[in-house]
């Protein structure tokens, strides 16, 4: 479980494919630059700036889950650039709070459930020794639920694989299941077509990196 903090670094090697979809409506146009920022910014101020803008969109568009989703994601990124453990937890609290709005709107959305699992993984990473027991099981269960909701969601599968890999390494047990999931996630990423320009697109490099580790 101690490896968890390394996952984020793997995650951050983004390779976002810019979809060739024309910027259609005003909502999509307003969202896109901020989504790009939460994927690419590596300090707190631009991330907070983007999250603030996303929050403004959220208050105007009361039925859209994406602004909350990326707000939550933005806070997870801020957590990653923070060293103080207490402050890290605060960012994760904000991430959970924002994501709760998204899950209220689309409770069965695999992407939202996958991010929820990711937040739990990050909770473990802050203090693996004392939180592993409490959150590791919860994180695995949540990610498994995200996969069940949409078996074609490569992110849910990649995160689950990452979690399983970490647990297997910690206990020195077989990584076969984790690696099979990593391979499957990589394959799904290769053919994955985002449903719309606002659909989540992160996690591919994490899956590929994990698969690479599996092969060694």
């Amino acid at each position, binding site marked *: 479980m*101690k490896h968890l903090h390394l996952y984020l670094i793997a995650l951050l090697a983004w390779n976002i494919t810019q979809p060739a979809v024309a910027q259609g409506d005003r909502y999509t146009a*307003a969202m896109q630059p901020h989504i790009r920022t939460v994927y690419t910014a590596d300090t*707190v*101020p631009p991330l*907070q*700036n983007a999250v*603030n*803008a996303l*929050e*403004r*969109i959220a*208050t*105007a568009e009361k039925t859209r889950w994406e602004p909350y989703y990326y707000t939550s994601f933005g806070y997870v990124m801020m957590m990653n650039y923070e*060293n*103080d*453990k*207490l402050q890290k*937890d*605060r960012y994760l609290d*904000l991430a959970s709070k924002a994501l709760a709005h998204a899950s209220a709107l689309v409770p069965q959305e695999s992407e939202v459930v996958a991010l929820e699992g990711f937040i739990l993984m990050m909770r473990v990473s802050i*203090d693996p*020794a*004392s*939180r592993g*027991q*409490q959150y*590791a*099981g*919860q994180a*695995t269960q949540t990610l498994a639920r995200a996969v069940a909701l949409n078996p074609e969601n490569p992110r849910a599968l990649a995160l689950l694989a990452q979690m399983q890999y970490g*647990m297997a390494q*910690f*206990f*020195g*047990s077989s990584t076969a299941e984790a690696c099979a999931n990593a391979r499957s996630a990589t394959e799904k990423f290769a053919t994955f077509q985002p449903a719309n320009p606002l659909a989540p697109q992160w996690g591919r490099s994490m899956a590929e990196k994990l698969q690479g580790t599996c092969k060694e």
Partner: protein
Amino acid sequence: MTMRLLFTPLLFIIMLPALAQTKLAGRVTDRQGQGIPLANVILAGTYDGATTDNEGAFSFETFETGTHKLVVKYVGYKDFEQEVVLAGRPVVLHAALEETINELDAVEITAGSFMASDESRRTVLKAIDIATTAGATADIAGALNTLPGTQKVGESGRLFVRGGDGNETKTFIDGMLVLDAYGPAAPNTPSRGRFLPFMFKGTSFSTGGYSAEYGQALSSALVLDSRDKAEMTRTDIGLLSVGGDVTHTQAWERGSVAGKLQYTNIRPYFGLINQEIDWRTPPASWEGVGAFRHEVGKTGMVKVYGNMSRTDFSLYEHDIDNPASRVAYALQNDYRYINAFYKDVLSERWTVRGGAAYTYQQNDSHAGTTATLETEKGVHAKTVFEGSLTDKVELKTGAEVLQRRYSQDIHTEGMPTAIRAFDETCIAVFTEADVYASNRFVTRAGARGEYNTLTGKTSVDPRLSMAYKTGNVGQVSLAYGIFRQTANNTWVRLNANLEAEKAEHYILNYQHVTGGRTFRVETYYKRYRDLVKYTGTTEPTQLNNTGRGSAQGVELFWRDNETVRGVDYWVSYSFLDTRRNYLNYPESAMPAFASRHNASLVVKYFIEPLKSQVGTTYSYTSGRPYNNPNKTSFNSERTPYYSDLSLNWSYLPKPYLIVYFSCTNVLGRDNIFGYTYSDTPTGDGFYNSRPVRQAAPRFLFVGIFLTLSKDKSVNQLPTL
């Protein structure tokens, strides 16, 4: 050219809406005028707005017109709202945000208090820390004994806090009193707590100045919060060098039930390792534990916990003057404890919790030709309401009843049975308010009123504490309170009219926390009044409440789990200066359970390639007083210092399997806790003595813990 001329008016028309843009600018600050960066300025219902810069300034333009609401949001502050009219004229405004009192930023009263919790993030210890402290052998009191404020009393195993004896610390489970939280032990051998550390999600150990909610404790309150519902169905099996246990947990969506059966038998172990005690039959015990949890409604939770056990042992006590002459002593202890707890949320601002606990304990002992049957039954019922009066005032108020029935029947062959018994009912009400001036400063004021049928008296005891944040990482807190406790059963059974004993605490604390490092220093003064005093040595007579005493000291604590990767350690040191004139002391003296210097070093190291956690604990206690009747001055002699180096090792070869090994006093030091003297002098007027030693130089423990569940990644780490 023509085209251009033609287009200009057209362009002008197209540009027109741009002229209706309104510029909004201003500054966001806190109430002290300090700019707040990164605050979100939102024109409600639109995409428009801005994020404040480093000085808290913002500026944006909008095409919206008419009356709108402008909202400013920033974490830790209340939302600021203001109507703005957008009509092309620039709008300038200043938003002074009011901070909210919130758990993460608010100052915390830490005077006299050590918290171990997995839920709260600012605690000094986690539940797992208690379980994995070497030398503590997974005993709560054993682990807390490595914290400042405690004095190690090796032959007792109980918590002795700041010059108080072991009875002055009371244990509460989910707020409900436990009458005897320790298992029975042979004379001069340490007893273990009856409750395992991982039953609890939070442990609050107070070494003084605690909440008005807790009474009938002179020195310390150990408050344990039990875990909520279990998450999954599982079976745990433990094979120990001294017995075994099996636990089954059945979980469903809204609740769980767990049952545990444990058998402990030290007999085979004692056969292997030389013992200081002349056992006839070493201790063996059966214990059954049941826990039921159920969620009620949307927010309610019912918890029922029950524990019953039977322990017996017998040994020979040898005469000091003539070691060949021995008397058999046998004890059978029966214990039952049941605790039912309920909590629910009444409204957005108020919660209620309450419960009832019943303790039954019987000691059936035989010494020579005398049989003693000691029985104590107690019922405790309590209800507490907690809520917020305003954003800055939190109130806790409640009532409780404690009823006890104690009896001791002594039967000696050829003599009439002597019965000593008493009943006590104690009714208490308490109320306490936390008043926050800001996130930096809090005052907690409260009082506890008690009526006790033994004395027929009503009392009101004040409690007061304050905390002030001196910066981002440091805070100062102080606490004051008056505490009372009915005198020990040993004395009340002889004289039921004894007054309650009283203690007054004054505590000053400074705490500094940065990341994984914690530094604490605390100083205190404690005054005892109305302690029991009597005359006589074997048969106490003239019992009264004229005893007095005091304790003062300084304590240090340092914990660091950041500097060296994988290493977590803490150091604690306590200095204690205490004197009492109580019981049959001829003069004011340092009591035999007290020690001037106590120090502990606890180190835990996680070795990932070995899938192991190893830990070591070193404890030092300076010499304790004992009374040598051959000397004229009372309690003037000192034992040698006490020291112990313990090791433990947990190995996780498989996710569902743990192998655990621990050894106390690795160096095998012959610790002496005191001396017992013969009641009568020899012919030349000299009293013979015998040292009180450890039962065995080392205690070795090996355990294998196996968990069977659907999810094979679960293990018993939490229960170790």
